């Protein structure tokens, strides 16, 4: 009639089993999430009559096969391109309905009328190196982001976020509650400086 307690299960090897699993997962997995520059390709269907775009509203950037840059017919270094693109986008040379009320550029009549109309055309050679191309893309996107940053902070001085932080938070699932609030603010600056970056098909010989 002795009440004997059930013998305890030996759990000593549990740690070994768990360690084995742990090491397996440590070895087979990678933590990184990918990030990169998002782009949208133009659809293939031919536009019947393409809209006429004034020469002064196009900012041409050509990267040749020796990875040299030609910006608006002039050679340039990659480090200067961000400033040049910002000056072009922010020029605001238009009059009347094309005038740009928020631009702070020099309003040069030979440069863009309005950031909404300004287009950056990026052209590369088939032998251009990919990393140089990405560097140029990066700097052009940076030009847009810098201008949006400026407008975002001047429009929303009390928000305590920069444009980059706000757009990061907008796409972050942890801040769903902020989404409604941030969307109109972000859309406003995006409409002021829309990213019109065209990637032309590469030239075969030049």
């Amino acid at each position, binding site marked *: 009639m002795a009440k004997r307690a059930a013998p305890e299960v030996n759990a000593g090897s549990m740690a070994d089993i768990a360690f084995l699993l742990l090491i397996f*997962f440590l070895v087979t997995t990678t933590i990184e999430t990918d990030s990169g520059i998002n782009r949208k390709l133009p659809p293939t269907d031919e536009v019947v009559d393409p809209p006429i775009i004034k020469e002064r509203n196009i900012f041409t950037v050509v990267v040749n096969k020796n990875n040299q840059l030609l910006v608006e017919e002039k050679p340039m270094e990659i480090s200067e391109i961000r400033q040049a693109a910002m000056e072009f986008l922010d020029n605001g040379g238009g009059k009347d309905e094309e005038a740009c009320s928020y631009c702070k550029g020099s309003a040069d009549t030979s440069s863009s009328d309005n950031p909404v109309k300004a287009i950056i055309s990026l052209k590369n050679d088939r032998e251009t190196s990919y990393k140089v191309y990405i560097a140029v893309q990066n700097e052009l996107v940076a030009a847009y982001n810098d201008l949006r940053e400026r407008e975002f902070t001047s429009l929303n001085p009390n928000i305590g976020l920069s444009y980059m932080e706000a757009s990061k938070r907008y796409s972050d699932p942890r801040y769903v509650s902020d989404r409604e609030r941030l969307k109109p603010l972000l859309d406003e600056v995006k409409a002021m400086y829309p990213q019109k970056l065209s990637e032309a098909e590469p030239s075969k010989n030049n």
Partner: protein
Amino acid sequence: MAKFKKKKGGETPAISTASLPDIVFMLLFFFMVATVMRDSTLMVQNKLPAADQIQKLDKKDRVMYIYAGKPSSRYADKYGNQARIQLNDKFATVSDVGAFVLAERASKRQELQDVLTTALKVDGDTNMGLISDIKQELRQVNALKINYTTRSGDYTQNTKN
């Protein structure tokens, strides 16, 4: 005297390791949740270029990957050292890209089929010609959202060799 001796006797008790499995399990679950499996083995060199104006590419189920670059040293004598495209676990030619995208798209859920992004993981030393060809193929099959996958860093790293 004997009364007191009894209490003092005995060695220091062994430290209990009963909670060790709990700790290890906790670590295990952390790693299981926080990590993603590498789904294909790389057969090409893949040193991504650096950029700092980047956006995160989340939601793995909406992304398809296209790798390109020179074949890695293990495959160099068989496939040469010209830049190649890798789709899943195989080397492919430019003309395979369209079929690959369509197959990937068909394998996804209906509601995701229109929001797929193609991530181009291309080695920095590749010529743009190959990438343009891939882009043309993607346009043909209407896969217009692309992402040039980069690592984060200053762009000046790209101009050095």
